[in-house]
C-alpha cells in the first residue's frame, strides 16, 4: 500500500459542493468538540476536590437565576441559527442533485441479485460497467428486478436506491477521466458485497470512439419498436390504429390531462405505470379498456419500450 487514503477522489461537478458542506461540518464540530474538551479539562483541574479555587457565588439569587437563563437561551439560540444555515445550504445542494439537467444523456439501469445491467439508448449493453463521457450530464433511469438495491459512486458523491416496481433517477457530470468504484449500498442478500462495478469516465473523443467501436447492435428505441409490435401495443396506439387509444407521438415530457381532472407529466415513470397499471391514471377522453401487462413483460423490455416512446416523443419537437 503506497499511501493511506484520507479523502475520496473528486471526479464530478457536485463533488466539490458536497465536500464543502463536509469540511464546514468538520471545522464546526471540531471546534465545538475541542471547546468542550478544553473546558472539561480546565474545570477538572481548577475545581478538583480540595483545590483552593474561588467557588463563591453571588449572594443575589435572583440575579444568579437571570444570568443562568441568559446562558441557557444563548446556547439554545446559537446552535439553532447555525443549524438553520447549514440546513439551507445542504438542502440547496440536495435539490441541485435531485434536478436532472434537460440535456442529460440517459442510461438505463436494471439491478438484480447481484449485478447491474446497463443499457445505452444507442444500443450498447453493459454488465457492471458504465462508460460515460466527461463534461456532460448523464442521467441514470433505474429499476430493480427483485429487491431494493442502491447505486453509489463515491468519487462522484452520488447515491440513489433502486426500487422494484418503479423508476428512480440520479445524475452526475464527470469531471475527470478515470475508473471509479460503483457499489451497491443497500443490503440485497448473499452476494451484496460483490454487487460492485466501475464507471469509466472518458474524454469525449475517447467516448465517441468507444461508442462507434461498440455500435452495430440496434438502438434501444429500435428494440423497443419491435417490442411495441410484439406485445400488441401498436394495435391500439399505432399511427393507423382505429380503436380509441391515445397516440403516443410527441407525448413524452408533455402534460397529460387525466379523466379524473388531475394532470401528469408523461415521464418514464408515467409510461411504465400506464403499461403495468393502465386503469390508475386514465387520460381524459378515453375509457379504461387497456389490459395490464403486469407479469408479462420484463424490466429490460419495459425500458426499451419507454425509450421507444421517448424517441417518437422527440419527433415533433
Amino acid at each position, binding site marked *: *500500500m503506497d499511501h*493511506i*487514503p*484520507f*479523502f*475520496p477522489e473528486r471526479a464530478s461537478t457536485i463533488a466539490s*459542493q*458536497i465536500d464543502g*458542506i*463536509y469540511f464546514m*461540518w468538520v471545522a464546526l*464540530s471540531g471546534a*465545538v*468538540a475541542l471547546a*468542550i474538551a478544553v*473546558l*472539561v479539562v480546565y*474545570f*477538572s483541574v481548577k*475545581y478538583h*476536590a480540595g483545590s483552593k479555587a*474561588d*467557588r463563591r*457565588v453571588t449572594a443575589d439569587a435572583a440575579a444568579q437565576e437571570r444570568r443562568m437563563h441568559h*446562558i*441557557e437561551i444563548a*446556547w439554545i439560540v446559537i*446552535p*439553532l441559527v447555525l*443549524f438553520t444555515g*447549514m*440546513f439551507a445550504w*445542504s*438542502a*440547496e*445542494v*440536495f*435539490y441541485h442533485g*435531485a434536478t436532472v439537467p434537460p440535456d442529460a444523456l440517459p442510461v438505463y439501469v436494471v439491478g438484480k441479485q447481484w449485478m447491474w445491467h446497463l443499457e445505452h439508448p444507442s444500443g450498447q449493453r453493459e454488465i457492471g460497467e458504465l462508460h460515460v463521457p466527461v463534461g456532460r450530464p448523464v442521467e441514470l433511469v433505474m429499476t430493480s428486478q*427483485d*429487491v*431494493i438495491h442502491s447505486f*453509489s459512486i*463515491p468519487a462522484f458523491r452520488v*447515491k*440513489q436506491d433502486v*426500487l*422494484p*416496481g*418503479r423508476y*428512480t433517477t440520479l445524475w452526475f457530470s464527470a469531471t475527470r477521466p478515470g475508473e471509479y468504484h460503483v*457499489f451497491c*449500498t443497500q*443490503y*440485497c*442478500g*448473499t452476494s*451484496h*458485497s460483490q454487487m460492485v462495478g466501475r464507471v469509466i469516465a472518458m474524454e469525449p473523443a475517447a467516448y465517441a470512439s468507444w461508442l462507434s467501436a461498440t455500435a452495430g447492435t440496434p438502438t434501444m428505441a429500435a428494440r423497443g419498436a419491435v417490442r411495441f409490435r410484439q406485445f400488441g401495443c401498436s394495435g391500439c396506439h399505432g399511427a393507423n390504429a382505429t380503436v380509441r387509444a391515445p397516440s403516443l407521438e410527441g407525448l413524452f415530457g408533455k402534460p397529460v390531462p387525466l379523466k379524473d381532472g388531475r394532470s401528469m407529466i408523461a415521464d418514464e415513470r408515467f409510461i411504465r405505470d400506464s403499461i403495468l397499471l393502465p386503469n390508475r391514471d386514465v387520460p381524459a377522453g378515453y375509457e379504461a379498456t387497456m389490459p395490464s401487462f403486469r*407479469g408479462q413483460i420484463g424490466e429490460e423490455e419495459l425500458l426499451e419500450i419507454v425509450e421507444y416512446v421517448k424517441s417518437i416523443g422527440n419527433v415533433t419537437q
Partner: protein
Amino acid sequence: MNSAAVLHHDNYLGAGATWRSWLVTLDHKRIGILYTITITLLFLIGGTAAALIRLDLLTPNSEVVSVETYNKLFTIHGVIMVWFFLIPSIPATLGNFLVPMMIGARDLAFPRLNLASWYLFVAGALFTIYALVAGGVDTGWTFYTPFSTVFSNSNVIAAVTGVFIAGFSSILTGLNFIVTTHQMRAPGMTWFRLPLFMWSMYATSLILVLATPVLAMTLFLMAIERAFHIGVFDAALGGDPLLFQHLFWFYSHPAVYIMIVPAMGVASEIIACFCRNRIFGYKFMAYSILAIASFGFVVWGHHMFVSGQSAYAGTVFSLLTFLVSVPSAVKVFNWTATLYKSRVRFDAPMLYALGFVGLFTIGGLTGLFLASLGLDVQLHDTYFVVAHFHYIMVGGSVMAFFGGLHFWWPKITGRMYPEGWARFSALLTFVGFNLTFFPQFIVGYLGMPRRYPNYPAEFQVWNVLSSAGASILAFGYALPLMYLMWSLRYGERAPANPWRAKGLEWQTSSPPPAENFEKTPVVTEEAYAYSDAEPAHG
C-alpha cells in the same frame, strides 16, 4: 451459612436464596437483577458476533467466514444488541432497581406485571436465539422488504416473532414506570424535585409505550406477507417497499432515544454527585429530555433521504432533525457547566460519565453531518453511519450503563468494586472505543458501504485499525465482568451511602431491605442539593 443468613435476612438479597424465590419474586430489585443476568448473557452472544465480524474485516476478502455466514453474523449482532441488550439495558436493570427507590416507593405499581415482563423478554430472546441457531437469519436487523418477505431463505419469521414478543415486555415495563411515577411518589417528591434519572425513565417509558406497538404491527405485516403472500410491501403483489421503511423507522428512530435518554439520566446523577453540585439548568435538562422524546417521533424520514422518498419530505425531515439536535446540545453544555465551581472527584463512575459525555458529543456532532441533505447522499449506508450510531448507542449508552452499574453497585450488592481496576477499565474502554470507531468515519467518507465482507484493498488500513481497537475494547468490557463478579464475594462491604450522594436510594441501607425503606421518606429539598449541604472546604 447460618451466620450469613443472620447477616442478610433483613435485606432483599437475603429474603430467600432458592431458585424458586428468584423465579417467582415480585421484588423490583430482584427483577432488575434477573434482567441484568439475562442481558449480560445476550451481550456475550452479540459481542461474539461483533468480534468475528471485526476479525473477518481484517482482510479485504472475506477469509475467516463465508459471505453467507458474515451476513448472518451482522444480523445476529444487530438484532441481539438492539432489541435484547440496548433497549432493555438501563431501563430494565437500573431502572427497575431505582425507579421505586428514587421516589420513595416500596415497589413498582404493578409488581406481577413487572415479573411477567421479564418472562416475556426471556421468551422473546429464546425465540430469537432459536432462529439464530436453526440456520440463522440474513436480513440485517432492519428486515427491509421485499428482501425479508420474498427473497431471503433464512429463518425470518422465528426471529421477528422473538422481537414481537420482547416488544410486549417493553410496553409493559413502560406502562409500569409511567403509572409508578404518577402515583407512587413519596410526600414532598414533586415533579421538579425528581432526579433527572427519573425524568429520563419517564420520557423513555412514553416512547416505549407509544412506539413499540408500531414495531409490532410492522413485523406482523411483514410476517403475514412472508407466510401468506398478502401484498403489503412487495411491489409485485401491489405493495410498497418504502412503506415498510416508513413504519420500521417510525419505531426504530425513537428506539435510539430509548437507548440514549436513560444514559443521559445516569450521567446526570453521576456528574452531580461527583461534582458536589446541582446539575446546571435542572429544568432545562428535564424539558430537553421531554423535547428529545417528542421530537424523536417526527424525524424517522432522515433514514430515507436516498430511498426514493420525495425531496420535499426529505427537506422536512432534515429540518426537524436539526431541531432535535438542539436539546441534545443543551444537555452537553449543561453537563460541562456543572463542573464549573464544583468539587470534582474522579472515581470510576465519574470517569465513565465523562467518557459518556465525550463519546456522545462526537456521536451527536456527526449526526449533524448525516442530517445535512446533500452530504447524507455521500454518507448514507457507509461506515460513517456505522461509526455515528455506535458512538451514540455503544459509546454513549454502554459507557453510561457501566458508569451507572459502578455507581449503584454498592447499593445493589452491598459490596464495593475494586476502584483501581474500575478506573483502568473506564480508560481502556474509552481508548478502545475511539480506536475502533473513529477510523470508520474516515473509511465511510471514502465510500466503504456497510455490510460488505469484501471491500477494495485501499480501505484495509482503516479496517485493521478498527479491528485492533475492537480487541482493546473487548478487554474494556471483559474486565468489569470479572472484577464485579469477584467483588460479590471479596469486595469491601459498602456503607449505606459511599459517595455521600443525594437521592432517596442512598438514605436506606446497602443492600436495601425488601420493602426499600423502613418508613416512607418525606422529601423536603430539591434534587442534588449538594452545595448547601457541603462544608466550604468540600
